[in-house]
């Protein structure tokens, strides 16, 4: 039993990272209806920038973190302006492929600058574990969990109460109507990419503190799909819960497959098997908006 409890806790930690990445994904999808296949690469770039500032330029971690966020804003602006804006109104496949192309470019840039080996962050948080319910849990994990909770709360409030947040939701609902109410659609798009980049960078920095980073980090971006599909593509709450649930299910399934069936490496696909099942039963997820078409 303890084995499964440990798996459950690990799942929650991994899941909170998924939630963060999924949050960025959902923010972009909600406002611009762009499916971002480069989400994992945005996480990776954020992680590498922060790494490079702290380790290679010897800037204190807090300032490095702030600089990373500033860089993410610029990255988001650049991506939106140069890559996504020319494709407004194009078909799904073009937009998907352009984000896939972007992920290749970002991955290759990271490899050119930092190589492919694993890089380890300097120790920021203390390493003695807390003990919760008899299980030792490292402070980094708790920080990850709390931080993703906080970010989720901030963005929920942002979308619900702030002017810009409401404008973003209006844009997502109907671009033409929003534009005729005086909302600058292009600014909204740029803003949502900035926010997504920031959230991803935070995720990247947390991940770097947990595991270290390497150039394969981008694979994380694929794990986002089960999470967002489970939660519903355009729901923030869905992204947060979906990430946690997928993280837990993935770890528990992997553990069960290892123990009961002797199958190794099931973790990689468990989430996608779940994904297929969700798509069959409930394609719009737990909290997603159902598309209803009438003729």
């Amino acid at each position: 039993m303890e084995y499964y409890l440990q798996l459950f806790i690990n799942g929650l930690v991994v899941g909170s990272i998924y939630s963060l990445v999924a949050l960025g994904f959902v923010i972009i999808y909600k406002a611009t209806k762009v499916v971002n296949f480069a989400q994992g690469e945005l996480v990776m770039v954020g992680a590498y920038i922060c790494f490079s500032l702290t380790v290679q330029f010897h800037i204190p971690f807090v300032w490095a973190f702030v600089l990373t966020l500033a860089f993410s804003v610029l990255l988001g602006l650049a991506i939106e302006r140069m890559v996504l804006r020319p494709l407004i109104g194009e078909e799904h496949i073009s937009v998907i492929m352009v984000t896939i192309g972007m992920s290749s470019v970002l991955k290759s840039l990271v490899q050119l600058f930092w190589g492919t080996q694993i890089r380890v962050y300097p120790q920021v948080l203390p390493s003695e574990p807390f003990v919760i319910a008899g299980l030792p849990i490292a402070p980094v994990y708790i920080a990850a969990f709390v931080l993703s909770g906080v970010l989720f709360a901030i963005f929920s409030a942002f979308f619900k109460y702030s002017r810009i947040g409401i404008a973003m939701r209006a844009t997502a609902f109907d671009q033409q109507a929003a534009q005729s109410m005086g909302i600058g659609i292009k600014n909204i798009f740029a803003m949502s990419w900035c926010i997504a980049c920031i959230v991803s960078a935070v995720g990247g920095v947390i991940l770097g503190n947990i595991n270290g980073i390497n150039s394969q980090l981008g694979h994380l971006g694929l794990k986002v799909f089960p999470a967002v599909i489970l939660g519903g593509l355009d729901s923030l709450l869905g992204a947060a819960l979906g990430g946690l649930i997928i993280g837990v299910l993935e770890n528990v399934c992997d553990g069960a497959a290892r123990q009961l069936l002797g199958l190794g490496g099931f973790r990689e696909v468990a989430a996608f098997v779940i994904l297929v099942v969700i798509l069959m039963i409930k394609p719009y997820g737990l909290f997603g908006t159902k598309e209803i078409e009438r003729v």
Partner: protein
Amino acid sequence: MLGKCGLFFTSYRGEAQVFQSCFQKLMVGLLILALLAAPFALNVYMTSVMNLIFIAVIGAVSLNLLTGVCGQISLGHGAFIGVGAYVAGQCTLHGVPFLLAILAAGLITAMVGMVFGVPSLRLKGIYLAIATLAAQLVLEYVFLHGGELTGGSNGLLLEPPNILGFSFDSEARMYFLLFFFAAAALLVVSNIMRTKYGRAFISIRDFYLSAEIVGVNLFWYKLVAFGVSSFMAGVAGGLWAHYTGYISGEQFNIGLSISYLAMIIIGGMGSVIGSVFGAIFVVLLPEVLNMLANGLGGFFPDISHYLVALREGVFGMVLILFLVFEPEGLAHRWRLIKAYWKLYPFAH
């Protein structure tokens, strides 16, 4: 239909012809002759590149039928090619003749493709893309953990193809075999596009609701599109497996699916000739980069070190540039070039 200036049809049959004018038939005939003569003039390296292009053409044209013509996005095409490779490999390892093995590869891949195509009735656009992404990753896992069936991470070793005792054991011999299959694939897809099925596919792509209202059975036609496309993917996989003589799970990863999608985007969605251009472009891109790297090796001694990363970056960059500046692909550029030379030296 894109009619040509100065070309008049007096019957619907004439308008639906694949090659419409005598000049076009002449040029295609000359091209086929040139391609048949090519292996006698090319060296081994260039023949091998041509062989890779032929295999890529089969894969690209099949994906173009599904994605470009029928509008069903598939991120799992690489895995379907893998299924074909493993099926054909297992068949020939168990003594089945090569051509039958290729047929079996096609049929079984078609079945697998149709199974993963079933959700396409309910799922559209990005949901379908994500479902096929899941198919890709699940199949990849099966390739790597399939035990005896797939050889696991060791892969399978295969003999060169053998038809009625004639072994295709050199690049030049493979060239003719692959050329035959690639030409057949192009002919099949061109002909599908002018039948009832092809028109149904196009109507589904353009607007599925209208298609259903005019009597197109969405489920059946989408399933057929998945089936035919996967059949050809399976054939491409079987040929590829026997061409390289070795199959491993890593060959058929998500990167392969992406590069096939890139081929049809760079070439031109929904265009047969575009699939050919795209396949040529994507196969030649790394070769050209290699050549450049060798050429520049004198100036930048470290360049080979960065080549893998550079290759991926250039690939992504090309994809983005095409989508932004030439969304209709090389097929569109080709039409412009033809129109230019047709009226040369007058602009209009």
